[in-house]
């Protein structure tokens, strides 16, 4: 028996209609490449049905998702997780000794010895302590306090909680503004808008490798006058989509700016483990702040974010991230605790992934040799950029960090014209063609914001080697044809 819903009664007014829903949610921009997502899904299905195409598999490099792009999970991580999930494995000798020891330790920190229990809202105490020790080591000894750390289902969740606290939601007050980079990862902008804040863009300078310039921060701040009240400055370092890694000097300028203009500093540092090249080094905002000494080190309010989703761990699906809060008003911290507690806790496996990230196998551990095997060399990334830059019309700034390439494309006028005719952004048009004809799924730059009249694509470069080769081969072949078609 199946009661299929019949035609809706005439003249029935919907209980939830577009006019009667949250304006904040309505204001969130729809993804520009939504049509690509749908088409990619269809293509995947068509390939499954063995429909004839110029390619056997789709190469999906649109997300910063190494596993999706063929990179294998770390054996040690997965062995520990399996043992924690099914503790019979802890006592058998199927798994290496250090795996079993770590699983025992992690399970001891769980109520009832089970990963199925809730943890404390900020995360298991032992794991949170481990994170604070990791931060201290990373930052050359600058102390980190466990009570200032909150684990969340992915770093964006924690970022949303912090922005929620920053936003002034009183209808009579001016809207809250957050300075955000242009280009910027679109999810963060959506979060801010969804919470009732306004994103105030500051342009990164493409000609200088996507550098952040303080004068541009100043200009952005001024542009906000009469529009909103900026309360925070959001920095992504290493950048997404840009791959820029900030110098210490630049970071000091930003800190001084934030202090002067009384802005809360939001430092999204999830790509801190992805730094390449000899001239780049990741240093955390916290460390730079600590080294600048008082009064700045005692007063600049900072939230820094990290995640188990990126780096060579790439465990995006486990949803493990954290925020460290620095120099916060203790009275406000109480409310942050309440906000996180209403979320219950972060998924336990995500918390474990963070623990494995911050306390990896050490030399001498049985799992250490396998764990340390090089995964994707700097050479591989450099090689990728050489190919991309060799394509006519492509120019890509050096990728010092992050997991994406964000090359600029100088598209032929005929292509731009065709795109405009079809009502599409030119780079979206390019991506749609690339998906259809070459089975390569990348995201157009219009999704992130870019200077008027410039076009980009973003794709993940933390990709399994064979897949990278295939990607570059298909891209080269497609691009050559495209340029011919629109010459």
């Amino acid at each position, binding site marked *: 028996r199946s009661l299929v819903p019949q035609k809706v009664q005439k003249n029935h007014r919907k209980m939830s209609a577009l006019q009667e*829903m949250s304006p904040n949610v309505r204001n969130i921009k729809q993804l520009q490449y939504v049509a690509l997502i749908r088409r990619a899904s269809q293509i995947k299905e068509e390939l499954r049905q063995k429909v004839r195409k110029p390619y056997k598999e789709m190469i999906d490099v649109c997300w910063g998702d190494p596993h999706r792009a063929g990179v294998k999970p770390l054996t040690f991580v997965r062995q520990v997780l399996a043992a924690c999930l099914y503790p019979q494995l802890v006592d058998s000798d199927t798994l290496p000794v250090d795996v079993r020891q770590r699983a025992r330790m992690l399970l001891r920190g769980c109520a009832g010895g089970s990963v199925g229990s809730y943890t404390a809202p900020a995360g298991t105490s032992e794991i949170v302590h481990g994170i604070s020790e990791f931060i201290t080591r990373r930052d050359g000894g600058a102390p980190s306090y466990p009570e200032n750390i909150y684990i969340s289902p992915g770093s964006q969740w924690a970022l949303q909680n912090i922005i929620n606290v920053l936003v002034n939601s009183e209808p009579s007050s001016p809207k809250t503004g957050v300075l955000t980079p242009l280009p910027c990862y679109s999810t963060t902008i959506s979060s801010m808008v969804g919470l009732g804040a306004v994103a105030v863009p500051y342009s990164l300078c493409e000609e200088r490798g996507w550098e952040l310039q303080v004068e541009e921060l100043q200009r952005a701040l001024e542009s906000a006058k009469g529009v909103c009240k900026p309360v925070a400055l959001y920095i992504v370092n290493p950048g997404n989509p840009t791959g820029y890694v900030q110098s210490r000097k630049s970071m000091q300028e930003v800190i001084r700016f934030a202090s002067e203009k009384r802005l809360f500093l939001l430092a999204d540092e999830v790509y801190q483990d992805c730094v390449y090249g000899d001239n780049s080094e990741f240093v955390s905002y916290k460390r730079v702040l600590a080294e600048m000494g008082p009064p700045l080190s005692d*007063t600049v309010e900072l939230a820094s974010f990290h995640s188990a989703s990126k780096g060579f761990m790439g465990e995006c699906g486990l949803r493990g991230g954290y925020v460290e809060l620095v120099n916060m008003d203790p009275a406000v911290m109480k409310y942050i605790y309440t906000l996180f507690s209403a979320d219950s806790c972060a998924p336990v496996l995500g918390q474990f992934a963070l623990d494995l990230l911050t306390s990896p196998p050490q030399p001498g551990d049985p799992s250490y040799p396998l764990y340390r095997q090089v995964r994707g060399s700097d050479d591989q990334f450099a090689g990728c950029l050489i190919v991309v830059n060799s394509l006519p019309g492509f120019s890509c700034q050096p990728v010092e960090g992050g997991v994406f390439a964000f090359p600029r494309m100088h598209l032929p006028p005929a292509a731009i014209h065709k795109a405009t005719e079809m009502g599409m952004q030119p780079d979206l048009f390019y991506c749609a063609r690339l998906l259809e004809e070459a089975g390569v799924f990348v995201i157009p730059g219009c999704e992130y914001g870019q200077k008027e009249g410039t076009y980009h694509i973003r794709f993940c470069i933390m990709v399994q080697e064979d897949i990278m080769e295939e990607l570059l081969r298909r891209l080269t072949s497609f691009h050559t044809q495209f340029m011919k078609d629109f010459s």
Partner: protein
Amino acid sequence: ISCYLSRSANTQFSVRRSARDITNMSQQAANGLPCRGKVLNLDNMNPNVRRVEYAVRGAIVQRALQIDKELKEGVKKPFTEVIKANIGDAHAMGQKPITFLRQVLALCAYPDLLDDNKFPDDSKQRARRILEACGGHSIGAYSSSQGIECIRQDVARYIEKRDDGISSDPDNIYLATGASDAIVTMLKLLVCGKGRDRTGVMISIPQYPLYSAALADLAAVQINYYLDEDKCWSLDIAELKRAVTAARQHCNPRVICIINPGNPTGQVQSRQCIEDVIRFAKEEHLFLMADEVYQDNVYAEGCKFHSFKRVLFEMGPEYSTTVEMASFHSTSKCYMGECGFRGGYMEVINMDPEVKAQLTKLVSVRLCPPVPGQALLDLVVNPPQPDEPSYDKFMKERTAVLAALAEKAGLTEQIFNTVPGITCNPVQGAMYTFPRITLPQKAIDKAKAEGQVPDMFYCMKLLEEEGICLVPGSGFGQREGTFHFRMTILPPTEKLKFVLQKISDFHIRFTQEFS
């Protein structure tokens, strides 16, 4: 590098210390001392967030954690452990995970185990299917924001089976980071308007404080409807009407939330009652949110879980094509008790397609729900079948868990009702008891003198004297002048008996002390 960074106050300390900090800061500000005000402070932080409370993890729990610490440090107390009967966490209280579920999840986490013959074939088959649906065949890849498609299909089939064939569209299923995430998402979507037009959301009193927290955060108007304690916490349409009519004076009521089986009250609504609520929702033009996370936790004779969707469709097209609804389920409760996975889903019915598109857009901001939680949900909706190797063990474990809960539900009601001053309604379902306690006037006065709500005063004393952590009824809402506490029925039977005895003894002592 020397330490230049100032240390924020430890938020694990009691509420009183934080209050002192605030007072200090205000005084400093008032005296114009050279204290450079914080960029983010009490005065300029989101005023909505200041109104958020979540009693289940509130002040009493923080004190319990502190006592835990003290015990570990060797401080002598009248008890050797703190029993945390405040939170619906089955595994924390010793309930064992279901073997089959954990086998499949381990295989998903570390697929090399697929070659290990210690794992039964049906567990491997499920794992392979799940991995096939994951990006790069890894549970570490992001999934689509709405959740892995084949899992949503499995959820839809489960719902159809549960609801005797009433069709369910996978596209109406949204997987989430626990049911709480889905509930908050729906409220975020629906709350709008200014002043007298501000969205009003009806919620039962007593309620699970996630709702009041979310409503405070969103500055929605909370419209309370009282459950009838004398009638086993049943829902009364006259009371719903009273509440919504009064609310129309100052807000725009648009949503009604109902928790069935109830939390904290445990009542299982009758089919008639569910029909009445649906009729009421249609008449008053309200979006219905049906929180059904305890749907397998039904114990009492004569009680049965009726899904809102099923009843809706059985009421015919006049209702089934018009009433807009979202129903919620989770992997945290029932027989699984897998809270730490944060798995759950909602099914939306009759939603305006444009609004649904907005919902789909909104969930993408969360990126995706945890994939292990999605995998777990897939197993819950797709358990071993009678012809499969794991079936017998699975059914044995499942039955044992639910039978134990039923036994403890009965035991709890029975023992509490023997104590003068404690009245306990039957625990028909869910995982909690919410007994009413009579407090002597002297105790009420003493509490008020100390600036505490009387049932918090009671629960704090119980914590300090017996090491048992409950949540005062004030955290859930109750009729003025009545007092309650919420206790979980999750501890193992022997420990539960111990806890019930201790609370009973404490209550008698307390009553005497303040007589």
